[in-house]
């Protein structure tokens, strides 16, 4: 790990100012992805801007039919939150399946979303539920937020402050975990929302994506059998030693059916 300057701003405004002042600085939220990157020297930021002082970003509340989760809420906090369990149990379930207990105790939803790991679990929930990412300056629809491999619509000095989820009628997340890393080889989030059925897939491609063919079929009838005969192409999917693109395509079908059976 290379040396860096360490900052602990007391407000979102100060944090943004620091990011503006240090163009090769990085935000430290829970650190569960950033610290390994630093240790392996895959990145060498000049400055780390820790959000540890910004306690107001840890709140979880339901307001006007929407669940708002502060960017610094940990995965464990989301997993055990009574509000989350009541409003969107699928989201509490998803958070409880991220990494391991140590990761869940430190990792944050804002950090996960901003990092945009293609195999992270949260992006499936954001896109699957049609969530909105709230930043220090604007709101970004989840569909527009994740732009590619580890890339988002965030500006370099922009800070995620919260994620706002519309409460669906029913939702579920089914994950097939990488056996070593416990990231999603394939994770499928299915939600019955006011705007129709949404299906989002993480882990399988370079970024989270929706499956239009599944959504159309499930819009007619929300049942596993509706997916019969709909092939998922492996053409744009990830393939590696743990799982080929073809196997991932197959798992999308299996996990989608399991999510539908688990809808709650």
């Amino acid at each position, binding site marked *: 790990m290379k040396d860096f300057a360490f900052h602990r701003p007391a407000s979102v405004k100060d944090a943004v100012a620091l990011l503006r002042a240090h163009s090769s600085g990085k935000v430290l939220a829970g650190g569960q992805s950033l610290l390994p990157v630093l240790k392996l020297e895959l990145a060498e930021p000049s400055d780390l801007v820790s959000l540890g002082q910004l306690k107001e970003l840890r709140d979880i509340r339901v307001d006007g039919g929407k669940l708002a989760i502060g960017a610094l809420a940990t995965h464990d906090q989301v997993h055990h939150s009574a509000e989350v369990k009541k409003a969107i149990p699928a989201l509490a379930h998803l958070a409880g399946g991220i990494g391991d207990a140590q990761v869940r105790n430190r990792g944050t939803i804002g950090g996960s979303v901003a990092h945009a790991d293609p195999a992270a679990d949260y992006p499936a929930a954001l896109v699957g539920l049609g969530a909105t990412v709230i930043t220090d300056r604007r709101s970004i629809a989840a569909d527009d937020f994740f732009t590619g491999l580890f890339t988002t619509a965030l500006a370099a000095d922009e800070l995620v402050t919260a994620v706002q989820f519309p409460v669906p009628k029913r939702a579920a997340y089914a994950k097939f975990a990488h*056996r070593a*890393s416990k990231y999603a080889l394939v994770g499928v989030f299915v939600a019955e929302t006011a705007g129709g059925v949404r299906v989002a897939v993480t882990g399988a491609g370079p970024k989270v994506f929706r499956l239009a063919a599944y959504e159309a079929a499930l819009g007619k009838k929300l049942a596993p059998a509706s997916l019969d005969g709909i092939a998922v192409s492996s053409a744009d999917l990830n393939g590696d030693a743990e799982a080929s693109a073809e196997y991932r395509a197959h798992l999308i079908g299996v996990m989608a059916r399991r999510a539908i059976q688990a809808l709650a």
Partner: protein
Amino acid sequence: MTTQGIGAAVRRKEDRRFLLGKGNYVDDITLSNQSYAVFVRSMYAHAKITKIDTKAAKAAPGVLAVFTGDDVAADGLGTLPCGWLVKSKDGSNMVEPPHPALAQGKVRHVGDPVAMVIATSKAAARAAAGLVDVGYDVLPAIGLVNDAVKPGAPAVHDEAPNNLCYDWHIGDPAAVDAAFAKAAHVVDLDLTNNRLAPNAIEPRAAIGDYDVANDHYTLYTTSQNPHVIRLLMGAFTLHVPEHKLRVVAPDVGGGFGSKIFHYAEELMVTWASRKLGRPVKWTAERSESFLSDAHGRDHVTSAKLALDAGGKILGLRVRTLANLGAYLSTFGSSVPTYLYATLLSGPYDMPAIYAEVKAAFTNTVPVDAYRGAGRPEAAYVLERIMDKAARQIGMDRVEIRRKNLIRVDQFPYQTQVALQYDTGNYQATLDLALEQIDYPNYDKRKAASAAKGKLRGFGISTYIEACGIAPSAIAGALGARAGLYEAATVRVNPTGSVTVFTGTHSHGQGHETTFAQLVAEKLGMPVDNVDAAAVGGSAVVKALDKVIDKGKKIAAHLLEASAGDIEFKDGNYRVVGTDRAKAFGEIAFTAYVPHNYPIETLEPGLEESAYYDPKNFTFPGGCHLVEVEVDPDTGVVDVVDVAIADDVGTIINPMIVDGQAHGGLAQGIGQALYEEVRYDAAGQLTNGSYMDYCMPRAADLPNFKVGNHVTPCTHNPIGVKGVGECGAIGVPPAVINAVIDALTPLGVTDISMPATPEKVWRAIQAARTTTTTKKGG
């Protein structure tokens, strides 16, 4: 009377310090004026080194020195030796290319150390390591052992034509030919034993400390056997007499074999400490461990089994190609030969065996002993082919084993591959295992699984291992370059407590407890009065017998009787048939305060040493049973039940024996389902981190049912056989046999380790396609 002797489930004495976080591992040690070493390692599998420019690194802040292969050569440091000479079929010696501590001219695997950077902090050393400018001329490389022996393959070493280290054999080819000529059934099986990384929880570390005033070296190292390291460093690599070299292995966090061997880093820190005049410390990072700890397994094997019409084995023929990696590791040569092929009779009465083993160099990390070391590979061949034979003949898998197991009345049993088994009862362990898993009700469980959409499979393995290696004379005749005896000293302190010194090192096995239990058993004292500093058990018992004998002479003097009339029982010396007695503590005190003492005929003090050279191997064995559920939609294999029955000989501490079984089973299941070191054809390691290399975790494993049926070993003083490796040997084939059994109704006949979800799913798809085609045709 103590209740803490042999057979008592005494809690481990060493756990207090471990559970308090007060263990003392090499990385916990910080010496005054200590410096830090980082190794620059090759990123290429095979390359000529065209230049090493160390100027920028030497000028970097905090850097004390940068050494390369030229410095190692200039100082005449020896190359890392191999401890076992194997001879080829034609009588020629194995090829032993030099293994320099730092690469000289060429690198031969990713991770091969090229330079050593030493600085005042680890961060400074790391930063400077990045400044060492190494020029490489990349050469074609061999990542997979099958490619090593193909015509025209690139040469890993110029000294080794066709990349062969040796072409060795054992057994009687003519007898095997005759067996196959009369066979009613011939079963063929090709298989791979997957390559594993040892992954001890504590990465390797070493501190060299040269004392210029006394011209004396101390090495602190993460070693399973510091005495071997001292011998090899003294005689072969550092070239200093043993009285000038002390090797300390403090607490060691797991080894599984990987910390047996003499590694370059141990030599380098010790040598560099002399060059710098200050201590030099190195601690591996986990990614470095993947690239520098000796790996295990990596065999490719073809086997053929000949059986008569009734399923009785007539003969076995085995051809194995073993991967040795880029260099011969300390015991790398012995693993695929004397620790593998000699076990190919398994627990079976086999009238004819012939095995041929070719061992090849590749551009990969050296391969050496890893939990089981050769014996898991042998068990895997046998247990897979036994299952295949049962299916081919249409025999029950339990019955074919029952029919072929060596009977109790056949012991001692001479195998066709050199070993003589002293004792065992393989029928008893088979029956006990079947009882523990509730075999008669298996069909009900299978139906319950089916109702959930799962395919249930039952897997069996009846295995044997050879432990307590070995009579030195026999090992020497087979090529071992070191003795294999053990030594122990029992020091009785003046107030009667006991300190035990042994050469064996404990790195998870609980010797501090079990050796204390031996003292408790013999001297009748609680284990808290014993401090056991670490095949040591038998030497401890021999030394204890000497202590008891000397005590009898002292007691005879005090009790005014003849020594022949003194008995020692429950911690007291007594004149036989009287109530005249002296407690052990009084005798010990008298030995050190000899006011009333037979000083003319007996030396004061009560401390005895003994050496124990084994008379034979010991032969633990048993039966491992596994039930799995396969999810046909995803290919995921869930191990739902494991029941084992082992015969590990006399059990000193049943709780420790259970723990050793649990750990071995976890590693064995890891090999069967999760673990595999993957090299690509060009020799790049593609899964050298825990993000990709999958270790088994507690949540992946069911509760184990561990049973024991004891037949004491006949030729050592305690009757012990050994337990640490049983799980890793017995269970992998049981898991795979269970997976194949689950998939047999679908037409799947083979699956390789590790049985990953995609592999299982593909096997199911392929079988369904074949079945559909057949139906369609």
